[in-house]
């Protein structure tokens, strides 16, 4: 195709139609189209329009790849493309963002972050700053959890204001329901920012950008913990790497790819370290909160990562401290890090970190790094853990381990993702017989889900999903404990095994969904709405339903017995007189009985907790009764559930969000 014989329009049409091939993330296609753009820069505006058109017209799942092309052209060629793309950048980016799924959004945000990093040549961000600022404002808005905080008291403002009071707590726990899925997703986006990155095209400029970003991350960490020798070494090493990549010498693509890979693991590692800081912090706040008898987990990984990433990518390269511009956020982050770091005993670091972790082998001279192979070697070492001590030096290993358990800091941070740890694993006889497990590999059993329930051994991931599951789990423990107190199902300790689910219900049964539904139900059910209950109960009474949905819900019985102090209803006109009754005397429960009418079935579902109430024979009175029961207009509830709900009803005037 000769540029001189065709018009810009023709060229753009051809270019556009050949972009139809960009249906997957293809480096060859993106590179060839980048080269085309470079060779035909006289058609730059036509090419830019073609690419914008492609981004607009492509189906959502393919838009990202066209944006990668935009990115590649801008980063590899620069002007005039950067200027041209800048015109519509906000529109192009935000429209795409609005149409794609969450994983893609994560990649978009990651992509955006790279645009804010000053380029080596101009010292300015890749695109027009105004456009970038607009996009940033947009992203902060759509991903800001404080818009609709869903599970934790983890929004920045609430922490800044120390507003760990009842209002906040109640609101937050109320919000945990399906309606908030969107918010959850947004939180996930932030959470995933750092781990789910767009594949980095391992070109020299890209790598430099990446290295710069990592330097900022490490630097930020060092600000909080200046004595972290390994951090300092990593800082040094990264700077050396930057020099090497930035030099004129040619580096093969394989080597660049390798460096990119290593950088990825350093990035993961940095993120893990932040998670660890956060974990500690979370634990601490939790402790404080428990003292105040609050239940919610106060701070989330995503928050911190959000801070961190915004900070390191933001407008900070000048002063080099990598901190967010917002002073409040700044302080929060610093205070938090400092408090965490203060707890990190230096000796534990020494014990826990395998000696080669971040440190070049002592015999090498870090300043003499000239060839990339050597560099790779060091990088590799910095990313790989030591082999596990499988010898019998029991005291050392126990002590080591105890320390790491107690401090919970560095323990899991060496090579973070499961995928990377398992990279070399093969499902083969000889591997299984012979492979010697490393400490990283073993620690997958503990650190893939690093949050452990205090009450049982159950583990949870340290992401949003894990936080939600943990919260449900904690509530379950609370309900169970409550029930242990009142004795069985409120029947004075008489507990029976339920029937098993039939195959249909078993197939449909889902623990997590079940939890969620129950939470919603508990939250949404308005106890005043008695006709609803009557309907339901009569449906249940219409018996031989013993094997259908009734049964299914019976499966929840253990998990779902009421006593949850949350509500999000809007009707709170009545029953003020009970306002001071903050506690129900559960020992009263067995005294409240309802005689079972002749016509009625022995079993009835309490529509508050959805547990089955089973009648027992009262020897003294010679009749069948339900214990811990109350009859409200012909509907039978657990007395304890009813009282609880009534109390809850009176409490619900403090929900500013609703």
């Amino acid at each position: 195709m000769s540029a001189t014989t065709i018009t810009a329009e023709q060229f753009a049409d051809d270019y556009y139609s050949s972009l139809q091939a960009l249906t997957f993330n293809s480096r060859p296609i993106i590179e060839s189209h980048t080269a085309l753009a470079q060779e035909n820069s006289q058609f730059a505006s036509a090419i830019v329009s073609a690419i914008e058109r492609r981004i607009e017209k492509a189906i959502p799942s393919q838009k990202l790849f066209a944006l990668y092309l935009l990115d590649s052209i801008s980063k590899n060629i620069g002007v005039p493309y950067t200027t041209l793309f800048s015109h519509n950048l906000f529109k192009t980016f935000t429209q795409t963002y609005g149409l794609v799924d969450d994983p893609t959004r994560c990649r978009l945000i990651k992509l955006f972050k790279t645009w804010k990093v000053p380029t080596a040549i101009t010292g300015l961000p890749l695109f027009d700053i105004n456009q970038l600022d607009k996009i940033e404002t947009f992203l902060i808005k759509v991903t800001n959890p404080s818009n609709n905080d869903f599970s934790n008291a983890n929004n920045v403002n609430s922490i800044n204001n120390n507003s760990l009071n009842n209002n906040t707590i109640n609101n937050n726990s109320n919000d945990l329901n399906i309606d908030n899925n969107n918010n959850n997703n947004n939180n996930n986006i932030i959470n995933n920012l750092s781990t789910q990155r767009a594949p980095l095209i391992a070109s020299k400029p890209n790598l430099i950008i990446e290295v710069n970003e990592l330097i900022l991350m490490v630097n930020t960490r060092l600000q909080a913990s200046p004595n972290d020798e390994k951090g300092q070494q990593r800082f040094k090493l990264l700077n050396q790497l930057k020099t090497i990549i930035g030099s004129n010498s040619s580096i093969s693509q394989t080597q660049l790819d390798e460096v990119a890979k290593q950088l990825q693991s350093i990035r993961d590692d940095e993120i893990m370290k932040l998670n660890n800081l956060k974990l500690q912090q979370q634990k601490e706040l939790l402790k404080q909160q428990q003292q105040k008898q609050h239940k919610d987990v106060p701070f989330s990984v995503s928050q911190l990562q959000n801070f961190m990433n915004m900070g390191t990518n933001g407008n900070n390269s000048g002063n080099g401290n990598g901190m967010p511009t917002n002073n409040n956020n700044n302080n929060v982050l610093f205070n938090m890090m400092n408090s965490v770091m203060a707890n990190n005993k230096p000796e534990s670091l020494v014990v826990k970190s395998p000696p080669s972790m971040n440190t070049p082998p002592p015999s090498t001279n870090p300043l003499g790094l000239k060839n990339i192979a050597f560099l790779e070697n060091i990088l590799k070492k910095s990313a790989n853990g030591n082999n596990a001590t499988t010898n019998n030096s029991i005291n050392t290993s126990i002590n080591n381990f105890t320390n790491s358990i107690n401090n919970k800091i560095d323990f899991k941070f060496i090579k973070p993702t499961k995928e990377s740890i398992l990279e070399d694993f093969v499902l083969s006889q000889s591997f299984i017989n012979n492979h010697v497990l490393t400490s990283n590999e073993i620690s997958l059993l503990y650190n893939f889900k690093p949050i452990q329930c205090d009450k049982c051994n159950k583990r949870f991931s340290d992401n949003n999903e894990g936080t939600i599951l943990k919260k449900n789990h904690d509530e379950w423990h609370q309900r169970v404990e409550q029930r242990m107190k009142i004795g069985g199902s409120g029947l004075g300790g008489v507990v029976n095994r339920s029937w098993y689910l039939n195959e249909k219900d078993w197939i449909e049964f889902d623990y997590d969904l079940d939890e969620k539904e129950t939470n919603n139900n508990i939250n949404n059910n308005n106890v005043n709405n008695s006709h609803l209950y009557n309907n339901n109960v009569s449906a249940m009474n219409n018996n031989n339903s013993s094997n259908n949905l009734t049964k299914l819900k019976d499966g929840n019985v253990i998990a779902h017995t009421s006593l949850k102090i949350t509500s999000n209803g809007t009707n709170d006109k009545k029953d003020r007189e009970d306002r001071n009754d903050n506690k129900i005397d559960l020992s009263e429960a067995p005294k409240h009985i309802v005689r079972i009418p002749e016509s009625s079935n022995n079993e009835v579902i309490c529509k508050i907790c959805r547990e089955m109430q089973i009648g027992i024979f009262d020897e003294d009175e010679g009749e069948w009764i339900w214990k811990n029961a109350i009859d409200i207009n012909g509907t039978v509830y657990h007395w304890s559930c009813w009282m609880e709900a009534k109390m809850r009803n009176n409490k619900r005037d403090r929900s500013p969000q609703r």
Partner: protein
Amino acid sequence: MDFALARTEVEIPAFHEWRVETSRTGVLNIKLESGTAEIFGTELTSNINYTFKESMKFAISTYHGCKISYTTTSPLDLEYISEETILKQILNLHLSIEKNNISNNNSNSRILIIGPKDSGKTSLARTLSSYSLKTSNSKPILINLNPQLSHFTMPSQLTACELYDSLDIETTTFGETMSTGPGTGLYRSQIPLVKNYGLESFTENLELYKCLINELSIEIDNKLSISNLKGNIIIDTPAFNVSNAKIIQHIINSFKINIILVVGNERLLVDLRKKLTLNDKVHMIKMPRSSGCIEKEPKYQRELQQKSIKQYFYGSNRCQLNPYTLHCFTTDFLFLKPKELDSSNMELMDFMNGDADDDDNDDDDYDPFAGNDNDNSKKKLERNWKYNNMFQIVDDPQETDLMNVIVSIIDDKDLDIKKLLSSNDIDEKEKLSIINKHVTMSSVLGFCYVSGFTSSTKKLKLLVPTPVTTLPGKVLVLTQMRYHE
């Protein structure tokens, strides 16, 4: 003079295990002091005091080294630290399986565990299940095809259970199922799917056994087809040997097995390789037998079974239950009983089951990685079983049929049993066939125990788990299990 029991500390080095057998009467109390420790993959936590009673045999193992302390009310029958463990191989295996899942687009594995008696199949199944929970976000499904065991329920049954929590290490049934109470307070209740086999040995009615395997696999497929995160399937089996190749092949085909673990017997692995028709993507791995495996004497096996029956009605230490007595009449129910076919001679069985096996062979070109579940279940839904060879009707059961028998209550809500039995349009053979088909396709809702029978009045005294005025099903299967209160 000293009422407090002495606390003994034990330090277990990394990759070692502490093997314990508690005495018949003693109560052993264990606490984790430091480090990490697990029992068959279930992680111990220092926040719980674990209690073991009544001849429990287990091992505490550790990857990092740990310190535990214990008290016991009477001396332990056995207690030693062993360095001959297979911890390395098990974790290598587990992580390799995880890797394999990742490489296969985050699919799940379908794992079949085969091995001789007392070779550690169940321990391996438990450990792999627990590890799955710890290193993935999906929930594994643990399946028991060994009717002698009592995973989550009583013996003589086949079960499948999706695991939400780690398995309970204090009971022999791995955990409590749902009750009207708060459960153990430690774990959420298990929700098993229970299929009635009713006999103790899989050889006693192969046709029924194979049919139930097929039904289970259909239900598993259905369950997985509606879950977003598909967990590993881990299948525990009775002591198959090479002469059971056909039944093994049947399991492989039904569950679309992609990993076969042969425990503790190299010869078996080699022989099975020859006998089985396997897709080239099926992995066959040999796992060593742990030196900690103990031979379960028949008497001990019995005790375990009795214990699990008792647990069904009365619950466990942490979850005490109250059964009820129900009075009714044998005429209220349809009683069935699994046919006991003498099949000690496997060749004869193969011959007798020739047709069914031919059906299996049609499945041989099935590719477990072709993915599309629907196509295959369609095939399985053509149920060409010999339904007349499974359960027989016990008309007017007598005291010898009933006394002390454990009875399975079959879910019969889709079947009008009275109408069927009184119909004149269907002959008896056909009726039996319909009933058998129904029973094999249904699951068990629960059990009762016949504690009394008066033949003159046909009055029945049943121990039932929950206070009901009628049982939830009209079809009752008299199992081989007996119980004595």
